[in-house]
């Protein structure tokens, strides 16, 4: 029997844990040509700000080993157009939509959250705290526990209870757990880990920085170990908070790694640029990987890597016996 992929993000149940990462699935329109949005675990929108934003000039990205660096400048249509054009499209497609909220001030975040409050098509909210704070010399909110907490509190206040709010953190901090704790105290129902890692590339032809923004965010498989470490660390400190894990996921086994580290769901980002139909494949591969390991339910694998060595979940034990028929009857019923 194949494994059950059902997972929970607080009050929200998802049929599978594979989402698309913020800013990597576009508005959903272009992705819909390659993926049935209703069959994704969920769709995370690009970060939405109060006003339309053109973003940074080109060049916005450069290819690097196992990934890319990008400095986009949060391009987007602003909350009005998002609510009029993009959210209804996602709802029509049957996507479970997680709206990413961004801003350059606490008031920006609060404004977007307030506008989202009565939108029934919003299944969860992700707060992108890795945005620069115009009131703090452009330092990202994610870099200080108090600033991150202020933003999370502002969003949580406006979003209906029952709609979980996830704080999405940047790994470029000396102590991620402190920031995560501050967000949890401010009312975050879960955490998204990780946003891109600061990086830079220099064009050896022009002899200048490859991006108009000089430095940018590194994404893709190159950052996967940083992301897995982040999820593992934060899950150890806050085991009760659901985590959406991301950073370089390209296969079902990559997804499993995040789940074992403590993620209840995963998001696929840069891989979609390489393989726009990747999400469905990752769902299939994850299901096969769980089944092959005798893990009947995804939920049983969440955080499994934290269990002491020697601990074997019952299903895995059943698989490792040479006679598959010896699988106890009770396990079958549990599935």
């Amino acid at each position, binding site marked *: 029997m194949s494994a059950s992929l059902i997972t929970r993000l607080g009050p929200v149940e998802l049929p599978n844990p594979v989402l698309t990462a913020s800013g990597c699935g576009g508005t959903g329109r272009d992705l819909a040509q390659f993926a049935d949005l209703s069959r994704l675990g969920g769709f995370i929108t690009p970060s939405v700000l109060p006003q339309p934003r*053109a*973003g940074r000039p*080109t060049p*916005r990205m450069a290819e690097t080993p196992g*990934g*890319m660096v990008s400095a*986009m400048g949060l391009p987007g249509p602003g909350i009005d157009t998002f609510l009029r054009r993009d959210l209804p499209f996602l709802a029509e497609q049957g996507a479970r939509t997680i709206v990413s909220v961004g801003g350059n001030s606490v008031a920006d975040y609060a404004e977007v959250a307030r506008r989202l409050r009565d939108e029934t098509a919003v299944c969860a909210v992700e707060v992108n705290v890795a945005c620069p704070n*115009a009131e703090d010399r452009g330092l990202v909110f994610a870099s200080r526990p108090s600033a991150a907490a202020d933003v999370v509190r502002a969003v949580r206040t406006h979003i209906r209870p029952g709609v979980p709010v996830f704080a999405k953190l940047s790994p470029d901090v000396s102590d991620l757990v402190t920031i995560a704790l501050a967000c949890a105290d401010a009312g975050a129902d879960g955490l998204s880990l990780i946003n891109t890692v600061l990086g830079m590339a220099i064009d050896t032809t022009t002899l200048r920085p490859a991006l108009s923004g000089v430095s*940018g965010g590194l994404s893709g498989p190159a950052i996967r170990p940083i992301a897995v470490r982040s999820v593992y660390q934060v899950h150890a400190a806050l085991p009760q908070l659901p985590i959406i894990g991301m950073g370089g996921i390209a296969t079902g086994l990559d997804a499993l790694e995040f789940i074992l580290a403590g993620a209840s769901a995963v998001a696929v980002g840069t891989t979609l*640029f390489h393989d726009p139909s990747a999400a469905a494949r990752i769902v299939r591969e994850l299901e096969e990987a769980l089944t092959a390991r005798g893990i009947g339910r995804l939920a049983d694998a969440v955080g499994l890597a934290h269990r002491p060595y020697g601990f074997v979940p019952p299903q895995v034990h059943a698989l490792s016996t040479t006679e598959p028929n010896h699988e106890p009857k009770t396990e079958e019923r549990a599935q």
Partner: protein
Amino acid sequence: MQVSGTVLTVREVGGYHALTLVAPAIAERFRPGQFVAVAVGGEHTGRLLRRCFAVYEVKSDYGGTVEFVFADRDPGTAWLTGRRSRDTLDVVGPLGRPFRLPRDPVSCLLVGGGPGGAALFSLADALHRRGCQVHFVLGGPDAAHVFGARSAQRIGDSATVVTTDGSVGSRGEVAGVLPQALADSRADVVYACGPTETLRQVSQVSSDYGIPVQVCLEEFLQANGACGTGLCLTCVLPVIGDDGVTRMLRACADGPVLRGERVRWSDLGTIPLEALGAPRALHVMEDS
């Protein structure tokens, strides 16, 4: 469509390479001006960005083949030049908006620079089928880097070839011969594909003559695009809309064919101040 295409041939054409693969689903849907986005480096590669190429030609052989022409300019394209027949390639296409064709049998000037000339031949066929006249101007740095000069002479109602070093055709640049070519061909519309600088000049000259011009931004897309599918927003450029508002459009999904007179050529690589969503003049903090 995302398909696994089987390579038929990879051959050198002057200083460029032409790759033909069997991909019926793409061949069937292709319209001139559209492109394919090819994954490079094989299954376990660390090169994640798709390479975008305008399609040269589709044929019905083997159920449907697709051919594209490219310059070997980075390790990704170098990998492509090493493909052999029966290798498979992960290809997405046809992508982007095609050239719009005139309703009436008018006179058309097709302007190509470097490998970009390849995108014009399927267009020429489509125009001929509509009874249009097809005149070519093809340019490049030297004889090895002008694509399709001989085919253009064969199928075109006229063909002007120009190279920087004069090794084939006349010595000079495309923009230099354009006024004469526009006059000689009595062109009603201009189509162009090639280096971004050439497209800028072609758009400028054509607008000066009041002739509508469509450009295919293949090179800009190659330099700036990560996905080709409209997801990543890295290949944007400022374009003036019907409502007069400048917006940052994607060269992939909103292009690659755009109206040349609408592109703000001198503002490429910037966000013009009056573009929709541009940073406000005194808004000091920008995001990183």
